[in-house]
């Protein structure tokens, strides 16, 4: 099997940050969308309680996801690597 040349460590680290950023954009985008729906219902005076009630459950869940992903990224890719160095 033909082996590829070694990859640049700098490029790998940059792409890992891009990867983390992508995850944050995805989850952050969903949170922004939920907030937008609350604002829309507020503006139209359209049963704001329903939007706020559901958001109170949904938004923390997405924040926890972001937290877990960041925790792993920091613990494995950043802190884990430093310890290894």
């Amino acid at each position, binding site marked *: *099997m*033909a*082996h*590829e040349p*070694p*990859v640049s460590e700098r*490029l*790998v680290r940059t*792409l*890992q940050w891009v*990867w983390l950023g992508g995850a944050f954009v*995805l*989850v952050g985008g*969903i949170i922004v*969308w*939920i907030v937008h*729906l609350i604002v*829309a*219902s507020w503006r139209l005076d*359209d*049963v704001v309680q*329903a*939007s706020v*009630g*559901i*958001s109170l459950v*949904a938004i923390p*869940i*997405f924040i*926890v*996801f972001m937290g*877990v*992903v960041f*925790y*792993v*990224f920091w*613990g*494995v*890719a950043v*802190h*884990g*690597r430093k*310890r*290894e160095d």
Partner: protein
Amino acid sequence: MRDDHEDILLAPIERSGRGFYWAVAGLCVLILWGAIAYSVQFTQGLGVTGLHQPVGWGFYVTNFVFFIGISHAGTLISAILRLSKAEWRRPITRMAEVITCMVIFIGAGQILIDLGRPDRMMNVLRHGRYQSPLLWDATSISAYLTASLTYLYLPMIPDIAILRDRLGKRKLLYSVLALGWTGTEHQKKVLNRAIAIMAVLVIPIAISVHSVVSFVFSMTLQPAWHSTIFGPYFVVGAIFSGIAGLIVTMIIFRKAYGLQYYLKPIHFRYLGQLLLIMALLWFYFTFAEYLTGYYGAEPEEMKVFWAKFTGPFWPFFWSMVLCNFVIPLLCLTSLKQHTVGKVLFASLSIIIGMWLERFIIVVPTLSFPRLPFPQGIYAPTWVEWGETAGSLGLFALFYLLFTKFFPIISIWEIREGRESSLKEVEERIVSYLPSEAEEKV
């Protein structure tokens, strides 16, 4: 500790045989059929389908509920087995988690197809109202998808590091995704903690998803939909079909990739027993649901009831009972011999039966509406058949391609099982039993 058999797990990633290309070609034919059907529907409108007034939901919504149900195969089953420390889970969890992630995309896509005009989806994003259960669905499915992707990715990190170190190709991809994993104690601690958090989180999210899917029906006052047990009924059905889907996938890849060393008859026996329990539970819920409706004898409800039992939908209803209850009961009560064959037959039967169950829930109620609309029977056209075939093909193709990039059985979890589980299980068993010191007290 490296196992010589690990090469079997890496072989599909290193090279592709003729079978792979034939499978891809076959699936592409299905996808092409689906694409042609969709392009016809897109240009000519939903009039080319069998959907009409009063039956506005047919195959697409049935497929949506069915696929979202199948998605429970993965994350939920994997999380329950992981949290309950079921050691036999190790070769199963990855396959299950991948099913979830792939099938959620396909399930959610059915709604886009059903819209006829997919650009209208933007209205949900811009002007959605949280009073509508449809929007609860969108939110809970987003949460489930995000959780499932995270829950799939985290346990893959050590395996991706193995691929990075052992394979001579896709170095950049594996290096990025492995996050610099070297297997230090600190990294293991972080990863195990994160997996445990996700396993706990994923269970209520998975249950909420199918409850919310059921709310789309039960929050209306339509006959045979307005039911308080629809939430748990849907969840039971989802887990039921999910396990069946998982078993079929396991057997296909066991055969195709020669994984008999990892997926043994004992795994199928345990899953078969789970399937039997779910079949009984499903029957209990179905019985309770229909008995309550029958005893109430509300005229509009009874029209739908008899349409299912003896009317135009009887072949689907009784086939559902046969596939979901009679056949699994016959196949799964004794699994001492021909375990894999019996479990496969029962699972295929359940997949068909559960699709029929979703169909039987969606269509008859709309055919006999409470409001004074004319009654109508739904007959799908080639467009709906094509899009259903295309969706199945797309799911299978995504899954197949995944197996060409990542190991379908978790290598590090098998290693971990070999290295530490025997001792850990022994210690756990000892901790369950009364100790001598306690006996003296």
